[in-house]
């Protein structure tokens, strides 16, 4: 393997980045700078960088949320990613309901978001609305990216599996893939919360997190029923 390593998200003059192995590199977190507005804007022109911002560079993502640097830009990027990333899977699932997968993940999170904000404030977690929103939107954004990765697989399975009801139909597999995407989205949020000691406050109220994520799962299930996905 002699291919070039992908250039840093911030360009040559950007902040220092960890080496190829970033996962589990919590000690390096302290020296990382948050994403700048320019970087986030550039990611919209180069969507492949969204994967880096949302999935790969956890430590910088958490630093951005903690430092509230360009936070509304980050929220916009997460929201956009949540919607656009889920569209291809939605289109393959049902062409007439292209937006339903985006609605399933993003809509459920937005419905549950006020409860996260109010309960966390009540329990003394000092995070702003933008910080909580960014954390909450990590779930649909990561889930949407996984859906984006899975959509060619689902398209292939749907094209090669019998259309009529069988022991296991393509729709069952779609539900399985959507579930996996959601679970990975939730796990991504939890990974982000555990990567940085500065989010200790949020982590310490684990009961709040557990309760809110359970609520989100329930609402997502209901949303799937309402949208006709289940």
């Amino acid at each position, binding site marked *: 393997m002699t291919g070039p390593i*992908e250039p840093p998200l911030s360009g040559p003059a950007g902040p220092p*980045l960890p080496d190829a192995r970033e996962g*589990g590199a919590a000690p390096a977190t302290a020296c990382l700078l948050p994403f700048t507005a320019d970087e986030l804007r550039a990611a919209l022109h180069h969507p492949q960088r969204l994967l880096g911002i949302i999935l*790969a560079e956890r430590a910088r993502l958490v630093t951005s949320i903690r430092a509230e640097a360009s936070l509304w830009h980050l929220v916009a990027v997460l929201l956009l990613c949540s919607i656009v990333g889920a569209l291809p899977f939605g289109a393959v699932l049902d062409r007439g309901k292209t937006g339903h997968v985006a609605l399933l993940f993003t809509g459920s999170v937005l419905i549950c978001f006020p409860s996260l904000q109010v309960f966390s404030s009540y329990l003394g977690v000092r995070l702003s609305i933008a910080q909580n929103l960014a954390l909450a939107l990590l779930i649909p954004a*990561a889930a949407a990216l996984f859906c984006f990765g899975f959509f060619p*697989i689902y398209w292939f*399975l749907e094209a*090669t599996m019998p259309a009529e009801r069988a022991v296991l139909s393509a729709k069952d597999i779609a539900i399985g893939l959507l579930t996996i995407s959601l679970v990975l989205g939730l796990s991504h949020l939890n990974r982000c919360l555990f990567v940085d000691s500065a989010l200790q406050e949020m982590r310490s109220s684990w009961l709040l997190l557990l309760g809110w994520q359970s609520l989100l799962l329930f609402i997502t299930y209901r949303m799937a029923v309402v949208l006709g996905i289940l």
Partner: protein
Amino acid sequence: MIRATVVLALASASYGFSIGASHSWLYATRNLVKFPLLILTTAGVCALAYFVVARFLATRLSFVQVQRLVLDIFRDTAVLLASLSPVSLFLALTMVQPTRESLGEYPMFQGLNICWIALCGCLAVGQKARDLLREHRLDRPHRLAMLTAWLALSLFAGGQCAWYMRPFFGIGALKGDSPPFFLGTAPDFRGARSFYEAVWNLVQPPR
């Protein structure tokens, strides 16, 4: 990458030919196209998912690098299998052919080939894991998680791909038949019409 693809196609065609010969020359020649197509389709369908998984596991590998790594694994597997194709061809031509009454040595042939595919796949993945450590400084848990996820994705999509493109080799008692190039969603002897149904039927045989 082009070179790896060409090597992969040639090596997998060679192995496909040898296993197809257990049934007939028709199957063997068809496998010259079908086996490379199986591997390349699986790699193509999973390409995006491989990349998203690599990103999720916090590697800084680019899309092209991920595809190159995956292609390397498939190529190595195909080359290892190709080295076994003379053995496989020999066994295919000399095994006790199944008849209407008995399966002959067909289960042995099938079992050996499954073992070889598993062995070659594991060897190729193990080798690539060492390369990832050396060239990309990925630590052990991330290497294992990424390669395991890639394997799971390949099995998930590749299983259905193989099912749709079947038959690759089959029971000799069916030699008189001339099945289509791909059987597609045609049911098997247990009634399964997809890979997942076939696995389900193995776990819980239909009454």
